């Protein structure tokens, strides 16, 4: 091997140049510690509903262990089509417009790769899920971040988008209810965004993974607005509302030409999503109202609890309206998000992710996931209170 060239130099540029996720760094520190109360877990603490697990075992016994159609079992796509019509207010043909994927993560990757030519710009809002920027870069696109702000409830506005749109802009990527801020967009908010999209003739990818987890108003998806279905790829999955993260099951709904393009990549890379996970999803769709409603009710109580506890600590926090994250402002102590999170971890054994893991504009914030039991949540808030008092004494 040519000694003058390191292996690192041989890596693809767009892979080499992307820093690892800030979450990974934080995970490495947390995993060295014991008795940590974690508010940094982005997945439900509930078990997958028992009937889903039980049915999956049954499906395994029955021999659902083979390749499925590239798009996924037709029976599942039919069930998805009915569910999507009800939940998201848009009709999709199960034969040609729904693609079952390995989690929403794969679906997003497919959507970006199917749409982007090198140099195409993707507008997305920060703070946001950690993978968006990286996936755009992997697809040779140009990520263009739009900063949302606490004073707007972390909602996206047309003015913010107008300031960053260029002739190269091709796609707008949305994620509401939002990880990490818990923000949601009302129908009115979305109408403004839809008008912007139509005017600039953009495509939309909307990651609606937290659609079921809203606490004060039902979710509105941009696909349900006039003219949007035909220029949108809707992404959704089973991880959050059904507590099925490990099943890795998501899906994309899009007009047939887009679905066909995504399917092409999926076919050559994944072939199909896990047959057992697809069976599990089919069972999950058999009684979504009951399964999801119980969990939503519990999350709502925890949301109320954490919002009230943070307010008492004097940590300003936009009221979380969806997902299971609170995103308080911790800037008044003069520490960076990272230092605050590290000290909180070392001094009180509470893990919460620094806001900067979700984009630079997350500086001054901390993501606290409340997908954890009330007992742990209470203990975490007591420890946080002690920590905040200590910081206040130090500043005097």
């Amino acid at each position, binding site marked *: 091997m040519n000694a003058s060239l390191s292996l690192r130099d041989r890596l693809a540029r767009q892979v080499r140049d992307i820093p690892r996720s800030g979450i990974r760094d934080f995970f490495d520190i947390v*995993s060295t510690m014991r008795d940590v109360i974690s508010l940094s*877990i982005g997945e439900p603490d509930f078990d997958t509903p028992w009937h889903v697990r039980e049915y999956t075992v049954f499906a395994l016994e029955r021999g659902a262990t083979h390749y499925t159609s590239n798009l996924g079992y037709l029976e599942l796509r039919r069930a998805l089509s009915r569910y999507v019509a009800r939940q998201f207010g848009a009709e999709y043909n199960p034969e040609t417009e729904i693609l079952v994927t390995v989690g929403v993560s794969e679906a997003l990757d497919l959507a970006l790769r199917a749409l982007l030519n090198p140099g195409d710009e993707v507008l997305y809002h920060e703070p946001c899920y950690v993978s968006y920027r990286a996936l755009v870069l992997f697809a040779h696109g140009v990520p263009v971040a739009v900063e949302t702000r606490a004073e707007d409830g972390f909602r996206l506005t047309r003015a913010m988008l107008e300031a960053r749109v260029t002739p190269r802009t091709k796609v707008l990527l949305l994620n509401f209810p939002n990880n990490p801020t818990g923000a949601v967009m009302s129908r009115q908010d979305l109408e403004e965004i839809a008008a912007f999209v139509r005017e600039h003739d953009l495509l939309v990818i909307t990651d609606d993974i937290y659609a079921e987890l809203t606490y004060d108003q039902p979710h509105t998806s941009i696909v349900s607005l006039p003219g949007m279905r035909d220029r949108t790829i809707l992404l959704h999955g089973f991880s959050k509302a059904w507590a099925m993260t490990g099943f890795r099951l998501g899906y994309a709904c899009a007009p047939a030409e887009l679905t066909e393009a995504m399917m092409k990549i999926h076919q050559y890379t994944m072939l199909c999503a896990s047959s057992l996970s697809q069976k599990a999803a089919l069972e999950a769709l058999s009684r979504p109202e009951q399964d999801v409603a119980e969990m939503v009710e519990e999350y709502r109580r925890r949301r109320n609890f954490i919002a009230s506890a943070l307010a008492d600590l004097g940590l300003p926090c936009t009221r979380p309206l969806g997902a299971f994250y609170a995103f308080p402002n911790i800037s008044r102590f003069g520490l960076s998000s990272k230092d605050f999170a590290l000290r909180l971890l070392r001094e009180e054994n509470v893990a919460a992710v620094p806001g900067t893991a979700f984009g630079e504009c997350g500086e001054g914030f901390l993501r606290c996931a409340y997908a954890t039991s*009330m007992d742990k949540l*209470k203990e975490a808030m007591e420890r946080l209170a002690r920590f905040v008092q200590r910081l206040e004494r130090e500043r005097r």
Partner: protein
Amino acid sequence: MDELLKILASNALESRETIARMLNLSVEEVQARIAEYERAGIIRGYQAILNEDQLDLDKVTAVIEVKVTPQREGGFDRIAERISRFPEVRSAYLMSGAYDLLLFVEGRNLREVAAFVSEKLAPLEGVLSTATHFMLKTYKRLGVLMHPETPDERLAVSP
């Protein structure tokens, strides 16, 4: 069901402060509503859910199916209430189907329960027949699994 009752039904020891936060109420409102439920007899008591199998108690529990004759003026209620007053009877339900009452009866041993059935329960006027089943092991009670659940397998940090 009122959310306050749901919370208490799953954990009656939840502090009034925490309940107030969860429901966006004041502590005083929570206390007043609980007091009202108690006064109205909707909340009838608070008990710990024990895993008695771990306690090595001198105790057996029998599940007894009872067929009875409904009585004029009072139907099943009179006989059911009469049976329910025995302290050995821990729970009693009116059932549809092949029998009328289902009882959960406790005693120190098999003989004691047998004596209760043959000497107290069966001779009661209106009791036609009984079928007694002894409980061997408890897997779940009042919605709570008795055996340790699998620990939280989630990664400590995830995106």
